[in-house]
């Protein structure tokens, strides 16, 4: 009897539609996030994340409508991220039926958004989304992280989808977010994102060790083995993936069956 490790499919949405083509040819509407999420649900997904990559004010209504439909049909935890800038935005998304909001760039600009959100809605629904990149320049204030090749670097928080470095140390920021009331950290490494070479294990383990809240590993998964590494070497509490599920390279169930065979507790 133990808390299971979670597998979380992520859907990138633009204008309320799933971005990228899909190999789920049997779906009536492959671009409909709710239908795709339902498919993941049937495969045994533990939660679902919707990431609104449009995230403009004008399109706000579209994502709200998607959340409402998802909440009406899926009886699973739903996290929504993208363009959340205020307590009002958080409230609107939670009211529509989401259970958690993930906050990225806005939290860097104004860390009090985490505290204000947690105070009003509880820490359990505030997820800090942290995008990070390796930095090899000397920085005595940053937390050194040893890489498998023997080099040492620190990890810098990047914002605006990874395009803008902030100078902020990723481990320090994770700790601050926890103190401010974040209930979970969604960590994406720009080093591994999109590579299919596996999660960025050194920073995942460093942040998981540094905080007392759950950490979701994200970015880079390509094989079943990568999920195992994320949990065991990366010490992640959950693993998130988009494209491997989206393109049907593997199902959530296959991942969980593999993990169960290797002794990782999962809900099957």
């Amino acid at each position, binding site marked *: *009897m133990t808390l*299971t490790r979670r597998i979380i499919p992520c859907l990138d949405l633009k204008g309320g539609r799933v971005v990228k083509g899909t190999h789920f040819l049997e779906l009536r509407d492959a671009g409909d996030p709710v239908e795709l999420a339902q498919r993941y649900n049937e495969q045994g997904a533990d939660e679902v994340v919707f990431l609104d990559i449009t995230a403009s004010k004008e399109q706000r209504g579209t994502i709200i409508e998607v959340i409402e439909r998802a909440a009406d049909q899926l009886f699973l*935890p739903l996290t929504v991220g993208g363009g959340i800038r205020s307590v009002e935005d958080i409230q609107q998304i939670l*009211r529509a039926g989401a259970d958690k909001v993930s906050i990225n760039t806005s939290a860097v600009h104004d860390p009090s958004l985490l505290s204000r959100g947690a105070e009003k809605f509880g820490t359990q*629904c505030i997820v800090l989304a942290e995008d990070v990149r390796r930095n090899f320049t000397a920085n005595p204030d940053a937390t050194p992280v040893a890489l498998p090749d023997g080099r040492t670097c620190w990890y810098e928080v990047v914002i605006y989808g990874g395009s803008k470095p902030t100078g902020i140390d990723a481990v320090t920021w994770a700790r601050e977010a926890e103190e401010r009331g974040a209930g979970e950290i969604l960590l994406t490494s720009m080093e591994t994102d999109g590579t299919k070479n596996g999660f960025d294990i050194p920073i995942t383990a460093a942040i998981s060790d540094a905080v007392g809240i759950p950490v979701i590993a994200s970015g880079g998964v390509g094989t079943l083995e990568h999920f195992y590494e994320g949990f065991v070497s990366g010490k992640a509490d959950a693993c998130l993936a988009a494209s491997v599920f989206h393109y049907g390279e593997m199902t959530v169930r296959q991942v969980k069956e593999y993990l169960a065979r290797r002794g990782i507790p999962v809900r099957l």
Partner: protein
Amino acid sequence: MKKIIIVDYGLGNLRSVRRGIEKSGGRPLISSDIEEISSAEGIVLPGVGAFRDGMQQLGALQRVLIASSSSVPVLGICLGMQMLMDWSEEHGVHRGLGLVPGVVRRFPRREGYKVPHMGWNTLTLPVAGHPLFEGIPSGEYMYFVHSYYADTDTAHTLAGTEYICPFSSAIWNQDRVYGVQFHPEKSGAAGLRMLRNFIAMV
């Protein structure tokens, strides 16, 4: 159709709770109106967030809930469950509704365990199961998100779960007041089954 009221006191994802009950065969109304709640045939008290805020937000509804609990079934979910108890140790000591004996405590720190307890964990159900868990096997998974847990005796426990320590994941007053720490409305088919069982008792 029996009149089931979901108590709206400004906290929590009421939409999911409402949809979960609808999907399970009920026709719930969401209300914060004292008269309406007093006339309910079944009451669901949802909620997320902090204990003290929850009790404050309930305000005058506290008395209504206490009065109704002697005549109609009540189901507390997550914070709603915690508020049924005597008191909570969340950010100081705060009095609850006192409908189920026991205390709400914070998970102790333990190496290798994250708080909140977030994710899917199993229920241990007694052999002679309560109708609230009819059709749900011991070992079934439910979805949890919480940092505080119910500490009560076995006589008031309907289901147990273990995380850092064993705790009561479903409680009752040995009559018709029930509370569950997990979120049945987020626990897939098993959660909906539990909601259906509650509706059947209304």
